[in-house]
């Protein structure tokens, strides 16, 4: 795992992608920092950071797009998969390399609140927590990007699909306000999500029995709950899918100085899920 990690990290800085990402993120944040904190005198660095979120949406796909698609195209995955290293370690090695690249600008950001402090009052706790969550959000995005990269052979497709998904997640609040709120539509939404899950299980396992059972039992449970306790379904879609607005945890901190611990748990679980899915998608390709 260490071998893969070191190779990946070196390759990020040899191929300039890592340098460009770090430079771009720091330059962009620097401009915001100057405008908000230095010129206008706003004492929160976290606010500046929220402006940099948009850079992640372009920058993270840039880092993740090559991770597995390029290996597959150049057939170098044959080296990794025939080496005495488990697939989980291969994926973790690559993921940790991306995380390290994302961590570099975040470590540099730690200086910025100190600059504010040297000029007067600074809110170091909020600023450092927001830097930490910003980094964690980057890790979440990287996990999603890595998963998408493992699905395709083309880094262009990996880039565009990751960019698209991150953009939708970024704009999620606006999209969400258009969802219906009635109980019936809540039920319909649940059934649609259930079908997607069942289809995914069928696609991965090829076992019609298990996926059929999941679909039928899940649907029956959903309908029973609907009959017994209808009010549960009101606003359900908004509540449930509202969780997908991943950046909300971060913007809560930057805008309202509220740290949502469950949100951080959500970030960590999303990371685990997508790393797991990456392993599974590579496994699946080996077996099909």
């Amino acid at each position: 795992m260490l071998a893969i990690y070191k190779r990946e990290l070196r390759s990020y800085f040899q191929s300039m992608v890592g340098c460009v990402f770090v430079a771009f993120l720091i330059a962009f944040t620097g401009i915001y920092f100057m405008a908000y904190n230095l010129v206008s005198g706003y004492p929160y660095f976290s606010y500046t950071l929220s402006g940099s979120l948009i850079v992640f949406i372009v920058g993270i796909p840039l880092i993740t797009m090559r991770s597995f698609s390029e290996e597959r195209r150049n057939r170098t995955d044959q080296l990794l998969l025939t080496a005495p290293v488990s697939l989980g370690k291969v994926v973790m090695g690559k993921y940790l390399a991306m995380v390290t690249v994302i961590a570099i600008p975040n470590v540099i950001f730690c200086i910025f609140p100190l600059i504010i402090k040297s000029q007067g009052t600074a809110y170091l706790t909020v600023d450092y927590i927001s830097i930490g969550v910003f980094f964690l959000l980057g890790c979440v995005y990287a996990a999603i990007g890595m998963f998408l990269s493992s699905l395709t052979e083309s880094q262009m497709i990996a880039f565009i699909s990751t960019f698209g998904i991150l953009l939708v997640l970024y704009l999620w609040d606006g999209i969400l306000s258009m969802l219906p709120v009635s109980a019936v539509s809540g039920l319909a939404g649940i059934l649609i999500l259930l079908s997607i899950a069942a289809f995914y299980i069928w696609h991965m396992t090829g076992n019609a029995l298990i996926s059929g059972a999941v679909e039928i039992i899940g649907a029956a449970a959903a309908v029973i709950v609907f009959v017994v306790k209808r009010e549960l379904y009101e606003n359900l879609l908004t509540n449930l899918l509202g969780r997908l607005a991943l950046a909300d945890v971060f913007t809560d901190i930057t805008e309202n100085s509220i740290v949502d611990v469950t949100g951080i748990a959500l970030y960590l679980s999303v990371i685990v899920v997508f790393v797991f899915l990456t392993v599974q998608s590579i496994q699946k390709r080996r077996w099909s």
Partner: protein
Amino acid sequence: MIEVRNLVKKYGTHLAVDHLDFKIESGRIYGFLGPNGAGKSTTMNIMTGYLGATEGEVLIDGHDILKEPEEAKRHIGYLPEQPPLYVDMTVREYLEFAAELKGIPKAKREEEITEIEKLVKIKDVEHRLIKNLSKGYRQRVGLAQAVLGFPEIIILDEPSVGLDPKQIIEIRELIRKLAKNHTVILSSHILAEVREVCDYILIISKGKLVASDTPENLEKMLGEHNSVEIETEASPAEVRLILKNVPGIECVETQETGDGLTQAKITEKKGEDIRERVFTAFASAKTPLLTLKAAGMTLEDVFMELTQSDTVPDAFISGTKWEEAGTDAGDL
């Protein structure tokens, strides 16, 4: 050493590997031979753990590659059809990475890489970027990667494709050198190569094992119907007349060459040796023979016959019995 049992690989409805069964003993060079698309690469990819199998198992030194992949992969070095090279690394960096990946202890790494670089003759390019190397050098770097750690089994998928004749000879020598301490399995669709290098040939066609034996035995097996080729100044009609009363002849094919000579190919009946009889027949007819030579079936013929016909002669199926085959090859 390697046991492949009832291996099946399906891509959708296409059957790429069809119930393969064979055993690889240590210390020999094995050749996988088959036309393009016969399932050689797929079989190798499964044996090295790159792909999963639809059915069946592959045991490497008793470890199932699908169930205990890490333990099994430790025994294998693999050079795929396209060398898996990171082109933005230098040769040395790449080999260091591969060595670390294979878990070679740090203390031994440098020494071993240098040794292998000398073995495959890439020492002088070790600081160059792989993307600037020619195909032949890339192939050698790939080979160096496969040999790293000196695994017991080295699997090479078409190692000489894209090389110039001099490089092909060099790579063959290298394979022979490696075979002294390792089991080497290589695949090829070029017969001459396999015959020259390998101790043992596995012929695969349409995903099935159609024959497996030493090159000599394969030739001998179909060589039961030997033929005799003669050349004489008599006309084809005269040749047929002379041969008419010679016993043990299956059939005669004649052909006139431009310079007034007749060539004939006489096929013997099974188990007969007609050379003396033919000679005496022509001598008593006072027709001098200019040439008389026995011609067996060449490996080319065997290969063509096996990979093009759908039915496989019984002789070859029985040839896959390994105990007998093992003793045969031991004499060589």
